[in-house]
């Protein structure tokens, strides 16, 4: 018997799919939000296709952020890299505090309109949670376990791949999950510089004073965020699993 939460998630997923396949079903619900003869369902592009592009942007940016952040965390937790810890912390912090809109504004003159500035903004914005979590995961390993690994004669590399990373993995995944959720929402502003994301729907709604569009764009992003968040959380639990790491 699946829990209530699981049923709700399943229901949310089904509604989302229904909306993509049969948007007309939802027309009566959204109609009251728009003026007479304005369209209630987004009609300037395929919503499903836009959602896929949105997800792709988030996926690529988060993947890059995860690779860089985790590598950096590994580097600065090695003996040789320890001196770079404060520097890398401040760099990553700047990435987080610099508003993504400002990043877009700065990146457009260099890379032009389109997906690239958005990817850069999301990448920078996503670094911090992953880096901080990876750092926590790699520096709070039980000392007796690490000593046992050294005492068994594992090389530094073997310790990293066989002990440290597997033990830190659930915490690292938590960082990635935070980053994904933030990016899902943040990606919408990419459409201000012509990236193809669900932001398009929201912006179109703002421009034509169409509340139904705004709501559609916002709700799709929100449902995606919840579903992906929960799926990743499930993955973390499964990985930690019986080992209770």
């Amino acid at each position, binding site marked *: 018997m699946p829990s209530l939460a699981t049923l709700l998630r399943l229901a949310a997923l089904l509604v989302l799919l229904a909306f993509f396949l049969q948007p007309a079903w939802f027309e009566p619900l959204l109609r009251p939000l728009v003026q007479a003869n304005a369209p209630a369902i987004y009609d300037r592009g395929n919503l499903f296709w836009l959602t896929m592009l949105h997800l792709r942007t988030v996926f690529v940016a988060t993947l890059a952020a995860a690779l860089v952040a985790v590598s950096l965390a590994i580097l600065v937790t090695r003996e040789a890299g320890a001196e770079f810890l404060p520097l890398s912390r401040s760099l990553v912090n700047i990435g987080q505090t610099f508003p993504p809109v400002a990043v877009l504004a700065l990146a457009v003159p260099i890379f032009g309109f389109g997906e690239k500035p958005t990817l850069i903004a999301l990448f920078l914005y996503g670094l911090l949670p992953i880096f901080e979590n990876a750092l926590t995961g790699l520096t709070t390993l*039980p000392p*007796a*376990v690490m*000593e*046992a*690994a*050294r*005492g*068994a*004669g*594992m*090389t530094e590399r*073997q310790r990293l791949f066989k*002990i440290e990373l*597997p*033990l830190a993995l659930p915490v690292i995944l938590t960082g990635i999950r935070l980053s994904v959720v933030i990016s899902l929402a943040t990606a919408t502003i990419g459409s201000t510089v012509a990236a193809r994301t669900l932001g398009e729907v929201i912006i179109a709604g703002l421009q034509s004073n169409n509340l139904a569009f705004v709501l559609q764009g916002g709700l799709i992003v929100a449902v995606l965020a919840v579903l992906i968040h929960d799926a990743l959380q499930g993955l973390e639990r499964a990985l930690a699993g*019986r*080992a*209770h*790491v």
Partner: protein
Amino acid sequence: MIEFDQITKHYGDTEVVSDVSLTVEPHTITVVVGTSGSGKTTLIRMVNRLVEPTSGVIRIDGEDNRSIPAFELRRRIGYAIQGHGLFPHRTVAQNIATVPILLGWGKARVKAKVEELLTLFQLDPSFFAERYPHELSGGQQQRVGVARALAAEPNLLLMDEPFGALDPIIRAKAQDDLLAIQKHFGTTIILVTHDMEEAFHLADRIAVMDKGEVLQYANPAEMLVRPATPFVEALIGASERPFRLLAIERAGDAVEPGAAEGTPIPASLSQRDALSQLLWSGRPALPVAAADGAILGKVSLEGLVKRAARPR
């Protein structure tokens, strides 16, 4: 053979091990005892270079232990860490197999070894092999930790309070198993403990540490009879001395000619246990039997009491 040659270790301004020189003979058990914080763990961790001495040299079979890469050295030396340190994300079997796999043993050999060790430590392989450490009790975890240290059949074994979490029955069994393993493989063992009973039971030689110094390094009888300092005397436990003296000798060594009534005592039993049986039986003497059942003679209360007295 392990030679500690003028080993000193500083952490910042504090000296935690001070100018220790001692030689551990091959195929013997050396037990390190001393108060908490006296530097026991630090001392033994310098053998497998988990800690590097500030000055001094440690030689293993005549060779400076820094002459081979640290990871290779450590694969040759079994190490049962204080507080087990099992890998939480690996099963019991995977934990035990750690060093054999690093050394590239074949699958079948690793599996056989894991099962042998689990059985030896009274952990049913079919039940425990696939468990994770957190599913085990403290005593079970500790036994797995010791099994892991033994897995690659090292010539040299460092054990840091390996039996602290075990109940008295399993502890006694584990100690006897360790003695049997040591005899069988001729392993050289350095073991740290807070349990003086354990120290006298296992040790060929005992090193007493206090504030980073080794106050005395001697065989158990010598230490009982001639403690080097009042601290050593206090640590051994003055009131326990006669019993410890009896505990390190076998009943077979106290046999007197003559016959006695009652259930025979095995010659391999310690004299202390023999005394205990005499007292409990209420008899002045009991027969002593060899392993094959042949009666060798008797042990008497009077004889044992004489043996328990301070040697002159």
